[in-house]
């Protein structure tokens, strides 16, 4: 009897064992299926976004081409979407995963179409970032027209060489570099043609009316010396043209006759004073080229005179030589140091430590100076020819023009009477995003920052509401109800550091406006909703009224992209439970 009871108990215990095992393993299996579905959905979204972003890039390139613009010849699109991830908890999908894809494509028939000097605004390069449907077209360059370069005035501190540099130290280095690369000179007779440019259409009275101009000063000087005869009241060109077109030869003869040697009399001091006060100067443009070995030698650009002849650079272009003459380009012991001074800080001790001392010949020399490929070379920015600019053949050279250690592409150059250049150029560092950023840049690293934040706002307390109240208690035998709903907004904040305030987003009050001349089309308007200067607690992107808006802070060029993602979902299941088993 005892044995029988034991077996009965065993049999009872085994009853439903298969169902129990099925429930356990079935649950595991269903869990695994859920994980597979979740993973597969994620893979599908990723694949779809990769395809999509490539198409968007190619389509942008094609549409740009159709609009006769080269802004997106090689289009680049960054697509960011915060998608809900399939989930199997009781509240439904809650987690948002960022899906980030980048695509680039070229689909244009204007691939070889150059940027023209007279139509830059609609052709500056653009890159596109889409963040949860908001489209931000960022320029990656700017076009600067007719900028007259002048020697900067710098403080006396620096240069600074120990990283990391502060922004102020970095800018000071740039200023010193730029200042040092101006070449002031006392003019000599060979440069007289250039120093006194007299258009043949200029009349004597027009010259004399410009009392402070070089031409008028020297003209008067020569009149006083009796070299030229002033025709009182002359308004004709004939006499002036005759005089000035023959002036160089006359001047040379006069100058040599008067001053066969240096420091010959009061007249020389007088004319030197005039010439020094109106001295000729020019800017050195720098570029890097392979020039280190005989195997990799570049022919200097059209520059028949020093300093670019044979790339022989003087070490110190601001200090006058022993004769008091500026810009004495010679092959002294430092002549090559400038080429190897990669940061152009004029720290030649550091150059010697890095590359070894100067050598007189690279034949059979193991000096690093003879073998390093990339070196600076300089070109006087005097004429289009001197910098290798040939617009008729689409030859647009690239140079560092202002000590930033970054090249710009020059499209036009002209020079005024004392040698100061005025240039038009495309600046790859002047756009919304500086794609050439590196450790030599003074501004913060631009682009999308790593830190993203998400905030959830609910409406009327309906966030994750679940209704299973007593009215529908299954014990009453009526219905079983399961209902939940959510009415919320996920606010996703991302930060984009811009390089410059180009005025494309905040050049007006209000927002959402278009400006075709600045790359913000009316069909796809400016998505920045607010611009602040960050000067007060209310005038910043985190003030109460501003926190939900896409906001641009001009004080530090930070763009806060706020995506407001509405989420209104729910379910309501009702099951008729009458007549079913009830819990007693």
């Amino acid at each position, binding site marked *: 009897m005892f044995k*029988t009871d034991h*077996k*009965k108990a065993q*049999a009872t215990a*085994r*009853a*439903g*064992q*298969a*169902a129990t*095992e*099925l429930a356990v393993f*079935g649950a595991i*299996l*269903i869990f695994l*299926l859920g994980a*597979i*579905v979740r*993973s*597969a*959905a994620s*893979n*599908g*979204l990723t*694949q*779809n976004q990769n*395809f*999509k972003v490539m*198409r*968007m890039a*190619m*389509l942008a390139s*094609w*549409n740009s081409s*159709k609009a006769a613009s080269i802004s997106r010849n090689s289009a680049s699109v960054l697509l960011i979407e915060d998608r809900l991830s399939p989930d199997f908890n009781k509240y439904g999908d809650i987690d948002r995963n960022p899906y980030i894809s980048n695509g680039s494509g070229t*689909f244009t028939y204007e691939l070889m179409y150059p940027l023209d000097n007279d139509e830059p605004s609609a052709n500056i390069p653009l890159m596109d970032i889409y963040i949860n449907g908001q489209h931000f077209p960022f320029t990656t360059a700017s076009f600067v027209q007719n900028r007259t370069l002048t020697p900067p005035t710098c403080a006396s501190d620096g240069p600074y060489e120990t990283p990391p540099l502060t922004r102020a130290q970095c800018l000071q280095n740039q200023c010193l570099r730029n200042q040092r690369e101006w070449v002031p000179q006392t003019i000599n007779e060979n440069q007289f043609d250039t120093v006194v440019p007299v258009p043949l259409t200029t009349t004597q009275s027009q010259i004399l009316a410009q009392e402070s101009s070089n031409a008028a000063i020297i003209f008067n000087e020569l009149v006083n010396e009796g070299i030229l005869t002033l025709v009182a009241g002359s308004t004709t060109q004939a006499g002036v043209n005759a005089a000035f077109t023959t002036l160089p030869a006359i001047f040379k003869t006069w100058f040599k006759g008067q001053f066969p040697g240096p420091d010959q009399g009061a007249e020389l001091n007088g004319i030197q004073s005039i010439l020094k006060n109106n001295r000729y100067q020019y800017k050195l443009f720098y570029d890097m080229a392979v020039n280190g070995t005989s195997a990799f030698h570049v022919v200097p650009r059209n520059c028949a005179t020093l300093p670019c002849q044979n790339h022989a650079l003087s070490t110190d272009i601001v200090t006058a030589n022993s004769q008091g003459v500026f810009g004495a380009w010679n092959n002294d012991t430092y002549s090559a140091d400038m080429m190897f001074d990669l940061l152009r800080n004029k720290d030649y001790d550091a150059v010697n430590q890095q590359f070894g001392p100067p050598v007189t010949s690279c034949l059979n020399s193991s000096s690093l100076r003879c073998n390093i490929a990339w070196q600076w070379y300089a070109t006087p920015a005097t004429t289009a020819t001197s910098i290798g600019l040939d617009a008729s053949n689409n030859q647009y050279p690239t140079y560092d023009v202002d000590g930033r250690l970054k090249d710009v592409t020059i499209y036009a150059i002209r020079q005024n009477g004392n040698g100061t250049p005025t240039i038009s150029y495309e600046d790859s560092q002047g756009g919304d995003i500086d794609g050439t950023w590196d450790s030599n840049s003074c501004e913060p690293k631009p682009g999308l920052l790593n830190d993203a934040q998400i905030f959830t706002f609910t409406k009327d307390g309906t966030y994750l509401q679940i209704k299973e109240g007593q009215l529908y208690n299954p014990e009453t035998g009526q219905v079983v109800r399961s209902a939940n709903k959510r009415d919320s907004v996920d606010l996703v904040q991302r930060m984009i550091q811009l390089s410059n305030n180009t005025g494309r987003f905040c050049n007006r009050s209000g927002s959402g406006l278009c400006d075709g001349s600045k790359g913000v089309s009316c069909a796809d308007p400016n998505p920045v909703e607010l611009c602040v200067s960050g000067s007060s607690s209310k005038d910043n992107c985190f003030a109460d009224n501003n926190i939900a808006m896409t906001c641009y802070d001009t004080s530090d060029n930070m763009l806060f992209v706020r995506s407001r993602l509405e989420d209104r979902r729910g379910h309501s299941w009702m099951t008729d439970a009458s007549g079913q088993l009830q819990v007693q």
Partner: protein
Amino acid sequence: MMILHENNKAQSTIEFTFAMIAVMFLIYGMVMVFRWAGMDLAQRRFAQDNTLTTMTGTDPGSELNPDFDRVLPMAAVYHGKVTGNTTQ
């Protein structure tokens, strides 16, 4: 003893039968999910290649519609609206 023995008779068969029905549903669902996971990627690739080589009208830009894709219905149990027929 006899009663006990008769009570256990064919129990495993019955349990196996019921369990197998449920297991078959699970297996069917699993197969369909695996099929969906692969087919979804494959059909999107197919649609990608197909649309890239099919020009509508005379504008090559028609080949580059970014919203070319539709999610393949999972249909693990039935053709519902959970995963099917909505653009991503």
